[in-house]
């Protein structure tokens, strides 16, 4: 099964649903989803900028919150460094933490995410692998 994500209609915010073969695949796909959001549809092509690598670590006491905290780390890097992530290298999902080296480009993302909420937060195994759900405040 290929990893995938989709944006679900929500009156004011953005709900992100992610499917992956493994938990790690869900965390990697979250990077792709965020890149899609940060890049400007108005631009001619993908954002270009200096290539950077940043070690990222997130911690939480349950799986859903771990996905939210992972995304919150990426949101912080996007706002403070203008980092649009391409991929997560050396990703390790542990009992209560996730670590990786996030590789991306620094530019001026046109659209930022205000926050990653704890509303309808999910990360669990389903019939086809793993499914994550998170609502973003945009």
């Amino acid at each position, binding site marked *: 099964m290929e990893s995938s994500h989709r944006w679900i209609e*929500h*009156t004011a915010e953005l709900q992100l649903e992610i499917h992956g073969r493994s938990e790690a695949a869900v965390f990697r796909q979250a990077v792709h989803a965020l890149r899609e959001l940060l890049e400007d549809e108005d631009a001619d092509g993908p954002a270009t900028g200096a290539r950077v690598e940043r070690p990222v670590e997130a911690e939480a006491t349950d799986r859903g919150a771990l996905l939210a905290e992972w995304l919150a780390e990426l949101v*912080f890097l996007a706002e403070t460094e203008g980092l649009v992530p391409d991929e997560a290298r050396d990703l390790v999902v542990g009992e209560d933490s996730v670590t990786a080296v996030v590789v991306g480009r620094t530019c001026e993302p*046109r659209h930022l995410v205000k926050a990653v*909420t*704890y509303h309808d937060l999910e990360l669990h195994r389903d019939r086809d692998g793993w499914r994550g759900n998170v*609502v973003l405040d*945009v």
Partner: protein
Amino acid sequence: MSEPVRIDDTLWEIPATARDDMRVPARVFADAELLAAIRTDKSLEQLQNVATLPGIVEAAIAMPDIHQGYGFPVGGLAATASPDGVVSPGGVGYDINCGVRLLAAPLTHGELDARRRGALVEAIARRVPTGAGKGGPLALRGAELDAVLAHGPRWLVEHRGVGTDDDVKATESEGRLEGADPAQVSPRARERGSGQLGTVGSGNHFIELQRVEDLIDRETAARFGLRKGQVTVLIHSGSRGLGHQVCTDYVRTMDRALERHGIVLPDRQLSCAPLDSDEGRAYLAAMAAAANFAWANRHAIAHGVRRAIADVLGADAAGGTRQVYDVAHNVAKLEQHGGRTVCVHRKGATRAFPGQAVFIPGSMGTASYVLAGREGSMERSFGTVCHGAGRRLSRTAAKKQVEGGALRRELEAAGIAVRAASSRGLAEEAPLAYKDVDAVVRVVEQAGLAGRVARLRPIGVVKG
């Protein structure tokens, strides 16, 4: 979901008995048509969830512009009281002290021809950064940032010569919440916000150039210093990344402390802590600091607007541009209601004490309203009214129905000069994405919460 029962022409109620976990009823101010629209999403279910908060008093209350949010609906309020009352960061939202400020310029629409109107919109866009990025005119760090967090816009007046003391006096709580403690604001929140003072941001934030189209309550309009045909500027922004991070930090902290406090909730985004707990006190101190930052932000934006007016219309016009008022619509405040102190969470809802000015932005291209609070707000809604038209369509749905470029041309043809950082952002905020602001305002007036004072019509908009 439970059926709302009609209490009177503008008030509906879902009784506390509708669910085992509700402590108080859920009430919504609306007419039948608005209620039908409200029932198309999860707004009322979310309002019922709010009614489960420990220590909530009287009711979870929604305004006619309510729409589905996450945790709390947008357009609602909840008052909690000690000893078991809680404070919930989600009940304020990520954009702490998002709010609106109205400036009144000393000229009429007739004195502003199309060329100068366009030039003014361009000058505002040049003087006030919009969009997602940083690059604000007032990059503050360390002790200076702490001072703004503790004291709000008054520090900018006294130490940077930005704005005037009259501006500060014409601001809710004079731009400073008591109890603000910069030490409770995390280094991350500081980092996100330090370069953003004086910037509008993206999303639904904007600066709108308007004309006073109609005076509905002439006496109160005169007291607010508004004349028919006058040019006004409405600023809508908040605490930017600093506030977003404060809320993020404390939702996480309180989520982890729920079990220790013995709190069970139907939605994790309602995470909360007792008002007198360590977590509750720390959040209130950090939220107050973020609220002060937001007032300083709108204060600095207003300074940029005055400089733009000076660029195009001269120093006298800039000097004569007066602040009508500034109100928050995402904040929690300790207030006296019914003879006791309660913590009023307003999320997408505006304080409307009797006689106080309230600004209700419509969507781009439609009217906005100046209201004045009435006694009914103290009796029925903890001194609160609505905050806008309220979203009707998701951003995706709006973009499917409207193309940014076409919308820009349509607005320009209607005499509204547009300057937007992103066509996508423009389409997401298209007028059809919102409810009818006239209907929303009619309900709060009929309910006795606030009265209409003036209607403002857009003539220019600067959007992130």
